[in-house]
Structures are given as structure tokens and as C-alpha cells.
């Protein structure tokens, strides 16, 4: 007696895509893949943070005297933080909307998320110019190097997220998502929340600690 | 599996047994022979080395035992359990055995814990650093030479031994039977201070000061222990040699006095007079461009050294006589500069010109004076 190969049973596009919705239930393949990818990105930032804490422990005073008041937590960077955190909320509302097939709210919220992400990047870029003006650059000792490496790679990840959000907005406006088909939206939202959490940690460590 | 009555062991069993015995015999024979000596480190020259050697011997004993056991089982199985034409039925399909699993987990765990305890005890002896050593030396590693600064008890420099190997009249001299403390300092990249007869090495890391103690065994007086840098440091890594020269206390004291005197002495008057001839020599990537030079006898002569290496690499051109004695000891030339060395008149004969900073392998040659 041979078992029927379920692999060929439910087919909509190709035999492999059908497996994305495993009959066993649970999360879909793209969402699981994104969670694993996020895990690997967490480890990447872990390496950078290890370097940061090591540099901090080996170099006193920290911040160096010439940069004692350069990284002020209350200011432009706080505005940027609030914007990024808000964008996580709008992102999640978008996911909830498409899950109940409310396409209009989905498009609206995901577009707002995209815009907020872009605004964050612009604010960060402007903040960099302010810091440069105060002498904090990549070459300014371990303090400068670690600051720009950590925030720079975070910004790169935000940029990647913005690209992904743009794709979601585009495909959403083309009507490609529904309550039954929205793996990409879920995956991108998970990535966006990850980017947000990394920023909260960065902001707390670099500015407050 | 065979169901015939057991009268004598089958051929397979005999062969398998013979192979296992053969394995044991070969291993034991190698260990007991001359060749077997090469499986051990060289004779330990210091107190720490003796402790490390004892630890090595313990690990070695376990290693041989485990190898014979496991390899013996493999050899046995491979010969005893070959499939024969009579094997048509499947063998017994054993999936596992919990007691065996526990046994071969617990026993190795006990063995490694034993080895760890031995290691930990030895480590505490080897890594102990005394606040009051008898001799303090700062070994300075740079691309690509060693220099040794001898310090007094408060850390002040008494003199510098710039020549790192014995063949060129240098080396890190130490008295036997006394506690020596070496402090490691790097001028540039990571190096490593390694002396095989000490069974020991320690990295020289810029930005860090590593220290270690050792006492050379009393019966090693008069011996020279070769060493070299053991952490890749660039294109001259292979020539970063050093020697540790063990002396009796008396010889060492005399040597120290002499070195201090030299360090404090007013420099000998430079040979004066016009050089009869000025020879040209170029040093690049720790090599001279010429290995044969000629100079006239009984007249002063000069050698202009063009050091084409980077500033951190220094060279000089010393002259040794045929017996290896240093005839002229010249100051170093910094990389990127030229210096003209004026030598006094030499009687006719064959001499060696050599860079005392990089004596091996290529910074030397023959100076024929006639």
C-alpha cells in the first residue's frame, strides 16, 4: 500500500507553491523563512553590538570628553524614533486589515507605513549632517566608528524594508492580496517590526545608556 | 549468522583477531623505537616545560589507549563481519542499546574531566607570574626582528640586546636556575614568542602586555635554545628568529656587566681618514643585493647602505672575522634612508658582512680583503 503523495494534491500554481500552505497548518513557508532570516539578522547586529560594548569597556571616558553632549536623546532623534515606532503600528493595522479582506484600510495603512519609513530615513540623514558638523564622524575614534556603523547598518536595513514596503504597496494596489493570500504582507511586516525593535535597542543603548 | 556447533573459531575470527593484534604490535613497536621519540616534544628545558611535558605524557597515554581500543574494534569488525555468500538472511537488526549508550557517554565524560583537572593544575603552575622575578626582560617584537630590553627591578631599562640570534653574537641571555620574567611588547602587528624547548609560546599583541615566567633547568647551562615568531606577521615572518642563551650565573653576571658598560660607554671614535673605496649595498625585503664584496687591505673603506625597506625595518652592515667574532658593530639604518659606514683598515683575509638585525638567511655575504 503506498501513501498518496499529498505533494500533488492541492495545486493552484505549481506543485511546490501549493505546499506553502501545508495541510498541517501552522505558519506558511514564506513567513517561516522570514522569521529565520530575521534571526540571522539579529545575529549580525549582535556581532556589531559585541564590538560596541567591547570598545566602550576599553575606552574611558565614554563618551569621550569632546563628544560628551553630542548624542542627546531628546531632540530630533526622538522625533525619528516616535515616527518609526508609529510606523510599526500602522504596519500591523495594515496586516490586520488584509486578514479581514479590508483592502482599502490595508492600502491606506501600508502606504502610511512606507511614508513614515522614508521620513525616518530623511531625518536620520539630516541628523548625520548635524553630527558631522560637531565633529562626530566615522573616523572619530572607536566612539564615532561604532556609532556610524551601528546606525548606518540599521539605516540600510530600514532602506531595504522601504523597498519591500514599496513592493507590497504596488502589488496591493494591483489587487494581488486578499484574506487568503497575503503571505508577503505578513512577512514584510515581521521584518518591519524587527527593524523597529533594533532601533529601539540602538536608541536606548547609544543615546541613553 | 552461523548455526554450526562451535568447535574452533571460524577463519574470519582468526583473521580479525590477528589483525587487531597486529595493530597493537605495530603501534607499540613504533612507540618503543627511535621513530617513536618524534611523537614527543623535545627535551624540556625549563620548570614549566617539565610540567607541560608531564601533562603531554598523560594525554598521550589516554590517546594511545583510546586509539587502540576504537581502531581495534573497527579493524575487527571490518574483517570479522564481511558478507559471505552464505549470508542470505539479514543479520540481527539491532537498533540500539541504552545501557551501552549510557556507558560510552559516562566513561568518556569521566576521562575528559580527569584530563581537564590535570590541565587546570598544570596551567596554574605554568601561568603563574611572580611579582619578584630575578631577571626582567622586555621582548620587543617588530616586523621582522626581536630586540630584548633588560630591565632592573623597577622597570628601568639597563641595556638593549639588539641581536636576537647566537650565531651573530647575540641572543636573549639568561642565567640558569633563576626566575626569568619576560614582558612582551609589539611595535606593530601581532607576533608570538615561541621557544620549542620551552614547550611554550605566548602572543605579542599590540595594545596588550603579556607576561610569563620561566626558570631554565640548572643542567642546561651553556645551551642555546632556538625560537622564532609563531604568529604570521607579514612577508618576513620566516626570518624572525631568536635564541635563548642559557648561562651559569657567573657568566651571566659578567655578560650583563659588559652589556651595561657598552651601553654607557662613550662611543668609540669613528675611524677617520678618507675611505679608499666606497662600496654600494642595497637592502630590500630583508635581503642584500650583493653577496660578495671586496675591499683593499690595510686601508679604511666605506660601505653605503641604501635601506629600501619601510621605516620600521632597520638594517646594518656589521663585519665579522672568519671565526665569527664581531670586528665592526655598526648602528642601524632606518628604512627609507641611506647611511655610509666607515670601517677602519683590516688585514687581508676573508670576512663576513652581515645584517645583525636579520642575519638569516639572506642578509649576509663574503667580504674579501686583499
Amino acid at each position, binding site marked *: 500500500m503506498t501513501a498518496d*503523495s499529498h505533494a500533488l494534491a492541492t495545486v493552484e500554481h505549481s506543485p511546490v507553491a501549493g505546499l506553502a500552505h501545508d495541510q498541517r497548518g501552522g505558519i506558511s513557508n514564506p513567513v517561516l523563512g522570514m522569521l529565520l532570516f530575521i534571526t540571522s539578522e539579529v*545575529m549580525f547586529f549582535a556581532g556589531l553590538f559585541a564590538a560596541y560594548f567591547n570598545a566602550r569597556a576599553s575606552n574611558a571616558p565614554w563618551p569621550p570628553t569632546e563628544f560628551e553632549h553630542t548624542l542627546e536623546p531628546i531632540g530630533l532623534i526622538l522625533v525619528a524614533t516616535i515616527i518609526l515606532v508609529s510606523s510599526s503600528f500602522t504596519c500591523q493595522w495594515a496586516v490586520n486589515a488584509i486578514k479581514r479582506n479590508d483592502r482599502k484600510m490595508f492600502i491606506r495603512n501600508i502606504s502610511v507605513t512606507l511614508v513614515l519609513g522614508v521620513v525616518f530615513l530623511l531625518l536620520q540623514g539630516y541628523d548625520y549632517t548635524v553630527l558631522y558638523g560637531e565633529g562626530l564622524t566615522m573616523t572619530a575614534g572607536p566612539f564615532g566608528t561604532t556609532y556610524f556603523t551601528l546606525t548606518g547598518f540599521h539605516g540600510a536595513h530600514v532602506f531595504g524594508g522601504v523597498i519591500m514596503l514599496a513592493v507590497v504597496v504596488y502589488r496591493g494596489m494591483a489587487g494581488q492580496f486578499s484574506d487568503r493570500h497575503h503571505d508577503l504582507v505578513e512577512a514584510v511586516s515581521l521584518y518591519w517590526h524587527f527593524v523597529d525593535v533594533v532601533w529601539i535597542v540602538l536608541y536606548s543603548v547609544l543615546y541613553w545608556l | 549468522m552461523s548455526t554450526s556447533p562451535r568447535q574452533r573459531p571460524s577463519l574470519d575470527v582468526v583473521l580479525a583477531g590477528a589483525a587487531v593484534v597486529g595493530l597493537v604490535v605495530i603501534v607499540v613497536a613504533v612507540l618503543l623505537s627511535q621513530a617513536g621519540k618524534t611523537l614527543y616534544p623535545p627535551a624540556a628545558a625549563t620548570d614549566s616545560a617539565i610540567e607541560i611535558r608531564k601533562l603531554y605524557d598523560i594525554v598521550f597515554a589516554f590517546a594511545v589507549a583510546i586509539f587502540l581500543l576504537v581502531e581495534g574494534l573497527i579493524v575487527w569488525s571490518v574483517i570479522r563481519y564481511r558478507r559471505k555468500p552464505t549470508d542470505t538472511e539479514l543479520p*540481527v537488526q539491532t537498533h540500539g542499546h541504552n545501557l551501552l549508550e549510557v556507558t560510552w557517554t559516562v566513561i568518556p565524560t569521566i576521562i575528559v574531566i580527569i584530563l581537564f583537572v590535570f590541565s587546570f593544575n598544570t596551567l596554574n603552575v605554568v601561568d603563574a607570574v611572580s611579582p619578584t622575578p630575578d631577571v626582567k626582560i622586555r621582548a620587543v617584537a617588530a616586523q621582522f626582528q626581536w630586540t630584548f630590553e633588560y630591565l632592573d627591578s623597577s622597570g628601568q631599562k639597563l641595556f638593549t640586546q639588539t641581536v636576537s640570534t647566537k650565531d651573530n653574537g647575540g641572543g636573549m641571555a639568561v642565567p640558569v636556575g633563576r626566575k626569568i620574567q619576560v614582558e612582551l611588547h609589539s611595535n606593530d602587528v601581532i607576533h608570538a614568542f615561541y621557544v620549542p624547548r620551552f614547550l611554550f609560546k605566548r*602572543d605579542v599583541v599590540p595594545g596588550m602586555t603579556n607576561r610569563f615566567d620561566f626558570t631554565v633547568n640548572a643542567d642546561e647551562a651553556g645551551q642555546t635554545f632556538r625560537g622564532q615568531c609563531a604568529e604570521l606577521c607579514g612577508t618576513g615572518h620566516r626570518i624572525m628568529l631568536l635564541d635563548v642563551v642559557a648561562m651559569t650565573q657567573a657568566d651571566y653576571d659578567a655578560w650583563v656587566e659588559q652589556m651595561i658598560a657598552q651601553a654607557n660607554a662613550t662611543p668609540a671614535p669613528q675611524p677617520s681618514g678618507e675611505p679608499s673605496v666606497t662600496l654600494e649595498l642595497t637592502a630590500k625585503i630583508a635581503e642584500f643585493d650583493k653577496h660578495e664584496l671586496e675591499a683593499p687591505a690595510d686601508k679604511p673603506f666605506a660601505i653605503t647602505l641604501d635601506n629600501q625597506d619601510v621605516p620600521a625595518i632597520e638594517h646594518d652592515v656589521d663585519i665579522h672575522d672568519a671565526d665569527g667574532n664581531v670586528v665592526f658593530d655598526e648602528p642601524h639604518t632606518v628604512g627609507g634612508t641611506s647611511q655610509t659606514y666607515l670601517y677602519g683598515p683590516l688585514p687581508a683575509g676573508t670576512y663576513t658582512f652581515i645584517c645583525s638585525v636579520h642575519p638569516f638567511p639572506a642578509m649576509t655575504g663574503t667580504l674579501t680583503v686583499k
Partner: protein
Amino acid sequence: MATHALTPAVTAGYRGGLYEWLTTTDHKRIGILYVINSFAFFFIAGLMALAVRAELAQPGLQLLTDEHLYNQLFTMHATLMIFLFIIPMLAGLGNFAVPLQIGAPDMAFPRINALSFWMLPLAGVLLLAGFVTGGAAAAGWTSYPPLTEDRPLASTGSGQDLWIVGVVLIGTSSILGAINFLVTIFKMRAPGMTLFRMPIMVWTMLVTSVLVMLATPVITSALIMLFIDRNLGGNFFDPATGGNAVLYQNVFWFYSHPAVYVMVLPAMGIISEVLPVFSRKPLFGYKAFVFATAGIGALGFSVWAHHMFTTGAVFLPFFALITFMISVPTGVKMFNWVATLWGGQLTFSTPLIFAIGFLTMFLIGGINGAFSAAVPVDFALHDTYWVVAHLHYVLFGGSVFGVFAGVYYWFPKMTGRLLDEGLGKIHFVLMFVGFNLTFFPMHMLGLAGMPRRIADYASSAGWNDWNLAATIGGFMIGASFVPFLWNVFVSLRNGKVAGDDPWEGNTLEWATSSPPPPYNFDHLPEIRSERPVFDLRHGREAGGSH
């Protein structure tokens, strides 16, 4: 009841020319591409090793009068072997085998699978480009700063930067591959294949993928920080500007130690497939294998500083203890493999012969590693040829012999043809003898005091004879490839047709044609144990309870 002999509409043999191969997303073809690409880099890196050995055969600089070239050769030898041979080779064999062994039609993300592969030849070109742009990376595959900082007498030049970019690219390819494997294994197993019925090969690919996913990003961070130091005026690792040289070593080895398990666990998986099939017995202690593999993976994250024992910057007792402990699960595996052979009926086909070679070589490699775990002994042995002996016994004697066991084992499934047994045995003998002649003397050389990474040595040091022996052995290893390559070419054309199941295998790949159709299976046998095809062939009673 016999296995159905399948007659799929697509005939055996790969249809489609170059375009099909270049654009394929079929895991079987991608796996074969990985294998071919990996062998190509094995060859290139092997030639570099032979150049090194030719230089070291005798004292004096004979062939490579430029020590800088020597440093490039051993740096690129190691880099290519690690990142473009062994890791992708095992990923490729896993790519071919895993979906088949779990009864899936392909990997979870076939296009990302193809992307992962094609990043590799590109990265290889970048790495090798250093040779023509003024010098490849020459600071060892470990690339320690400050030697790799951008300053005179250190590694100025684009070779080191190309190296960084190439390795980061390969790391990205690995991470994507790992995600692919994990989603495939967790989500696409055929009905009845519970986790504890998966072949051990799949388990080792699972744990390896977890290691890759968690560890590889860390070396990416280390190399990016090094790049920033070299090119953007960064201050991470150069003490002259407030950085910390040992920090790099910690971040680097945090990846590079788990990486050695990435380089060996799948090979152990292959051994765990081959030994049962050719002993006609199940793998002894299946569950123990699973736990030992997971244990090695977990412990493997805690031992990285044993590569740094001589820096003076490590908490020695902790790392020594865990390093000793990691030999316990490894030993458990060794004993279980031997117990699989014990009481079996061994057929000495080439896959089994390589597997047995693996057992002996890996045993030696594991034992000589224990010496280094004893920290004071490591003070004598670190950075000497002892370590070169150890790493080659585990990575060559272990992983490479495991790779060949897998290649001989799965070649019939990949191509539909059997490799010639006679040539396989000649290959093994030449490689086995050559390997031991090359690397066993390195134990003696390390003990006698010969450091690593030196282009030349003094004749007075007494190392001449062992170096000459090692060089002769090295060329023997090179020669052993001739019968292997000849075998492959001849068998592809005229080899005996393999049929579905030439070895009387245990696992699902033997339940379909050789090569399998694009969608892998027309029918899947019932899966009630870790040996579904064995059960099909012998009926469940003979298989024992499960």
C-alpha cells in the same frame, strides 16, 4: 512487495542544454552544480597546496622567491577550501539528497536556491581576482588585524578587500541556503515522516543549517568592521587608534568555530547513511545520534576561544572544559558507528570503504585535538604544524572522505550510472596512503617546533625529512584524482545502468528512478520508520519494531 519501477515520461538523463542548466531551479540539478563548482575550487586550491608543499620540500627558497606570493598561496588555499569547496560541497550534496529523503518535490524556495548557488562562482572570481590586481589576500584565511589593517608592511592592496567582499557574498549564500533547508525540513516532509523518522543526513543538515543561520552573520559583521577599518578610517581593531586587536579574534572565531561543525556534520550524516546500507543493519542508536548532533551544535557555540589560548586574553578554564566536553558527543557517534558495523554483513563497495577510512582518520583527528584542549600543551602546539595535522585529519580525513563516500553513493542516483568499483578502490588507496604520508609527519614537525605559515626553514632545525615526506604524500593525493576523474567521465558515458536502487538502500531516494523525475516521486512508500525503503523491501516484521 517490490518497489515500483518507475517509467516517467521524462527519460533518464538530463534534458536540455546549457540554458536549462543555467536557469534551473530543480534542487537535484542545483545540487549537481554545487558539486561541480566545489570540485573545481578543490582543484584550484589543491594546486596551491602543491605549490606550498613543493616549496617546503627542502630548506631554502627555491620556487617562490617572493615570500609574499607564498603567503598568498596558503591564504587562498585555505579560503577556497573552506568557503568554496567543503561548505558548498556538503550543501550541494544536502541539496540533492534532503528533499528526496523527506519525500518532498523540491526545496521550499527553489529560486532562492538557485541564487544561493550562483553567488558562489561570482565570489570565487572576486577572491581570485586579487592575484591579478596586485596580490591576493596574504594574511592567512584568519586575516587578523593589525596585519590586515591598511598600513605599510601590512595588507595594503585590494586583494584583502576583494577577499572580504567575496567571503561576505559566500556567507550570504550560505545563510539563504540554511533558511531554505530549515523551511524545507520543517514544513515539507511527506506524511508519516515524523522528525524522528528522518534520515540522519537530514538531521545533520538541519543542525548545520541552524549553525549557519546563527553563526555566519557574525563573521559578516567581523569582516564588515574590518572593511570599515581598512577603507573608511574606522577604529575597531587597530590599537594605534583606540581599537582592540583581540576583539576581531573573538568575533571571528565565534563564527569560525561553529563553522568547523558546518564542515563536518553533513559528512557525518553521509557516513550515517552509508554504514547501515552496506552493513545490512540499522544505524545503531538513532536517537543518540540525533541528540549527539544537537549537542555538538549547541556546545560548538561555547568553545571559540580555544583558538586564542595563547593571546593572554581568554578565560582559559571555561573554554578548556567545554572543549574537552565536546569530545563526548563526538565519541558517542564514533561508538555508534562502530556498533553499526558490528555484527553486520559488510559489502565493501567504494562508499563503504571511504566511510571506513573516515572513521579511522576522524578518530585520529579527534584524538590529536584533545592535546590542544589541554591548555598548557596548546602553549607548545598552537600555531605549529601540529594544528595543520589536526585540521587536515578532521577536514580532509574526515569531511573529504565523507564527501567521496557520498559521491560514490549518490552518483548512481544523480546520473543513472554506476561508477566503476575498481577505479574507486584505486582512488581510495592512493588518497588514503598519500593523505597519511602528507599529514602524519606534521605531528612530528609541530612537536619539533615548526611554526605554521613560514615560507622556509633553517636546515639546522632538523625538519627536512618530514617535510620531504609530506611533499611526496601531497603529490600522491594529487595523483589520486586521476582515477577518480577518469572514473566519472567514463561512467557517465558507459557506466552500468544503476536502476532505482543499486545498493539496497534504506531511505526514500531509492524509491524513485535514477535520476528521479523533476517532481521526484510518482508514488511514495508508506513511511513507518527511518528506513521506509528497507521496510518496503523486507516487510515490517524483519525490520524490527518501530
